[in-house]
């Protein structure tokens, strides 16, 4: 009897607590229309802090917050402090969409920085396009997108491959094995790679896709052994990349004669698989942690003193960092009353910034960035050795595999 009553009290208390937190904003109305208010300017930060992609996205969150702190410590933008509204989309596309809506509609952020996977970017895109807001996306991706509401600061296929593929053909040979995870990113990268290889007279001896999250590569490795390709072009992502590298090494294959070439294996992935498994393989990216520039020295030092001496920076976190500074420069060009997502988009067009990777620029036509690709070879200590870098910055062309299409400021054009 007594016990039961206690249960009911608990139940009642729990139910009461639920109803209190469940609908806290029921009376709230839309905020007033100015974006810069009370000496602050609100931006959204949307990287998963929990769930399957949390490990990599947390590093993007940290780089973003660090850049915002730097700018605020420096007096903000024209005396406006940046206020970061951080949300956790939990690696789930639907939650991404929900949180993006909150940031855009409820918090009235003037821009949102976030997301790692293409799936999550696709999930938030309708929000930004319909509400005419601005999304800043730091990740390398497959291209073929021409949104007027996204600033893309990661690399597209032509930027990572134009130097990389000819270099590998010359150095290792013309028999190529393409292996990727089964979704749109690897397929698009391979479409462009095959185009380049054809021009170089090289041969694709196999093109194979494994399911996302695949971790059993013994049959693939047997094929490596029997086919003896000169280069294995790997667009395997996520946990699979760790499995592939470890099993490649365990099988006793030699990176000196049959290297894996990747566009996604950064310091972050190498830390997960161990330097031994990654040593000898190649990656093309606009940024490596060891890159020697005063800006990068400052970036790495600041990142480690802010977040821990064992942390690594990589080419996506570098983009997450420098895109905040591009944002700062764009906002600084505007008067407080004019600040808004579309005004920032117009202001950031053609904007240049001395990033850790070198000088970058936002291409006014397609809102992607001019970047400085480099080729790195991984070493056993988990860092890369930069072997070459492009002489100049490289133009972004999100439709590089499709010469009859071009992304312009007015939208996609058939040429």
């Amino acid at each position, binding site marked *: 009897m007594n016990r039961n009553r206690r249960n009911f009290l608990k*139940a009642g208390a729990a139910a009461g607590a639920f109803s209190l937190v469940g609908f806290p904003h029921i009376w709230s109305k839309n905020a007033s229309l100015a974006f810069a208010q009370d000496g602050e300017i609100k931006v959204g930060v949307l990287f998963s802090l929990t769930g399957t992609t949390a490990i990599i996205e947390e590093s993007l969150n940290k780089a973003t917050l660090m850049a915002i702190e730097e700018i605020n410590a420096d007096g903000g933008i024209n005396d406006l402090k940046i206020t970061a509204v951080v949300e956790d989309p939990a690696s789930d596309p639907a939650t991404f969409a929900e949180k993006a809506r909150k940031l855009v509609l409820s918090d009235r952020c003037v821009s949102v920085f976030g997301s790692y996977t293409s799936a999550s970017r696709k999930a938030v895109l309708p929000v930004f396009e319909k509400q005419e807001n601005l999304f800043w996306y730091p990740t390398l991706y497959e291209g073929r997108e021409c949104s007027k509401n996204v600033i893309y600061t990661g690399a597209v296929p032509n930027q990572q491959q134009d130097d990389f593929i000819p270099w590998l053909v010359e150095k290792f040979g013309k028999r190529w094995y393409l292996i990727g995870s089964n979704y749109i990113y690897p397929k*698009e990268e391979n479409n462009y790679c095959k185009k380049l290889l054809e021009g170089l007279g090289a041969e694709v001896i196999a093109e194979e896709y494994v399911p996302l999250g695949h971790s059993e590569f013994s049959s693939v490795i047997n094929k490596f052994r029997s086919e003896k390709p000169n280069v294995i072009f790997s667009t395997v992502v996520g946990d699979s990349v760790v499995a592939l590298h470890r099993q490649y090494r365990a099988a006793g294959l030699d990176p000196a004669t049959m290297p894996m070439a990747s566009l996604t294996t950064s310091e972050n992935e190498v830390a997960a698989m161990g330097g031994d498994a990654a040593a000898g393989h190649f990656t093309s990216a606009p940024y490596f942690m060891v890159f020697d520039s005063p800006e990068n020295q400052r970036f790495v030092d600041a990142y480690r003193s802010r977040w821990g001496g064992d942390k690594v920076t990589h080419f996506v976190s570098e983009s997450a960092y420098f895109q905040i500074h591009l944002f700062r420069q764009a906002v600084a060009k505007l008067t407080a009353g004019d600040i808004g997502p579309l005004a920032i988009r117009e202001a950031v067009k053609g904007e240049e910034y001395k990033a850790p990777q070198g000088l970058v620029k936002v291409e006014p036509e397609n809102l992607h960035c001019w970047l400085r690709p480099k080729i790195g070879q991984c070493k056993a200590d988990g860092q890369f050795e930069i072997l070459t870098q492009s002489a100049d910055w490289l133009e972004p062309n999100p439709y590089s595999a499709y010469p009859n299409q071009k992304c312009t400021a007015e939208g*996609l054009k058939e040429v």
Partner: protein
Amino acid sequence: MSGKISRQILLYGIVCLAILAVPLLVDNAFLLNKYARYLIFGMLAIALSLSWGYAGILNLGQAMTFGLGSYCMAMFLKLKTVPIHTGSDGLPDFMVWNNVTELPWIWVPFQSMPFALLAGMLVPALFAALLGWFMFGGRVAGVYAAIITLAAMVVVNLIIIDQQSYTGGFNGITDLAQFDILGLAFDAYSASTYYLVAVCLTVTLFVALVVSRSKTGLILQAVRDQEERVRFFGYDVALYKTFIFALSAAIAGLAGMLYTIVMEFASPTFLGVPLSLSIVIWVAVGGRQSLLGAMLGAMLVTGVQGALSETEAFLETWTLVMGGLFVLIVLFMPKGLAGAVEALLRRIPGGERKGDARPAARQGSKSQPHLGGAL
């Protein structure tokens, strides 16, 4: 008995009216969109309550039917868009990327709205009927049935991710047109979309109520409690179970269609294991033997989840906090919040429950304990 039923109808009606009145109080695009999403989860919970609470079929793959409905709507809306990201001739953008040259046959009928709307409910229902016919005809029950439902969902999920030239794969179907019907436009952020969802929820709730109160509903509850005995009486148990399983799937399919309208995309995560298990949790929290309880449970849990994850203090621990709350509820309220509230009401002397004191009514409720109280 009849007093109890009319009280139940009254209570259900009041809740539905309250839900329909929300746009009068809330004039905020974000909140309307968010609440519409919670209402859809409420529909999903009703669907599971029907099969789990009333017929004892624990469907761990409820999200499969939800996802199928969602994809049906997404296919229809996709075909209505001008593919801005490819500029190509009427083919969905992801098909162009996968070198598909003409519209696959499975997509062709989705150019018609009536077909798409029907398919959104009938495809999941047929899937479920087929699966149910296999399972229940073969007398698979209990935990084995639960495993089959889960496995079936994973299979469909993998097929959708793998067949990316027809389904959009991992990224799902994105960049959709706005849904409009009979000149009414349903912008995801508008009150009209909220009303659309709320009306569907109300209809669903009352349909489910009617079914649960019907002879079929009673037989299903008997099946849940004593399957062999019901079979011995000559009822075709498999048929009844298949029926409720398919009805539950149709409701989930409808919820899925609405979800695509509200979220503006469809994704393979809509038929993923995490969502599917969440539905079970919502229903367990709300009370699986109460349609209203399950529905409110879903809205409450997702509401708390949203609020917690938006609270800075819980930013990195909100999933943990939610987990803890579920454990507490399951431990201390095995019949969920609905069971707890009912027990609480029974404790209050006099008041609303006076009618129940009549011996006849008391006897009635004793012989049919699972009809429960007004909830």
